[in-house]
């Protein structure tokens, strides 16, 4: 049973993630201009390397990682990281080959893909309602309007 408190924390953290992702794009734009970085991929590499190093310190401080019997979790976290960074690379390639007016609406459809796959393969754990479908579509539309606006 998911309590109201758990739900609230889930919402806060998810919107918090959005805040960090959203701020990243502005910080990168600012950095490319001010720090004269002409290679955005290199910037991403520095950022991820630093984030990884700091997380490693945090993990060590929290007692390390016990992966015994947790192979499934390790594999899926690895795959999630690969998929997330491939998304960044594909977006980078898409924007270098196609106008942002074409690429942005397509890239922003990813929540709908998550909904679809979650519903098909995890229907029991991921309850899909019309509120969630319409809400995700509105967020996708809004994100595209802001990106193009």
């Amino acid at each position: 049973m998911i309590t109201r408190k758990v739900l609230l924390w889930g919402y806060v953290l998810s919107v918090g993630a959005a805040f960090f992702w959203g701020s990243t794009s502005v910080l990168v734009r600012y950095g490319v201009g001010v720090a004269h970085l002409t290679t955005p991929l290199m910037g991403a590499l520095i950022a991820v390397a630093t984030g990884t190093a700091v997380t490693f310190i945090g993990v060590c401080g929290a007692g390390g990682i016990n992966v015994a019997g947790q192979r499934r979790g390790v594999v899926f976290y690895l795959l999630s990281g690969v998929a997330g960074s491939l998304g960044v690379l594909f977006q980078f390639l898409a924007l270098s080959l196609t106008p942002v007016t074409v690429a942005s609406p397509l890239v922003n459809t990813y929540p709908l893909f998550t909904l679809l796959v979650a519903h098909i393969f995890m229907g029991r754990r991921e309850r899909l309602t019309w509120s969630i479908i319409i809400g995700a579509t509105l967020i996708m539309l809004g994100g595209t309007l802001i990106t193009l606006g």
Partner: protein
Amino acid sequence: MGILFAILASLSWGLSGILARLAVGSIGTLAGTFISLVASLAVIAGAVLVFQPGSFLVLTLSAVLWFAFIGVVSYLPGRYSQYKGIELIGASRAVALSAVGPLFAMVVAVIFLKEAVTMPILVGILCIVAGAYLIARRT
């Protein structure tokens, strides 16, 4: 070709949320974030070697410091929050809510970069707020 890459980007991000849903709860979220970042590091390092192999030579100290700062204040908390959110409310809601990023990007850009707010942006804000409300409301 650009359209194909845009679709692949969407599929990759969508899949990342699903894979995280399958991973959460197994090991701690911070440890999972670390494992996921290691994988991302390998992919992006490979991409730099393939697409921009000479980029190490043109790095400035200010660029290194700035992007290191972004890694600490943005990449780490962003991914941790995303995974924890998925653990607490599921991938469907968490991924949809974390897609409101352009709203914050716009707010930060208006405040710090003095960018203008246009009519499409205002409509976009309304859509995002309405969408987030629909997702968060208890049904």
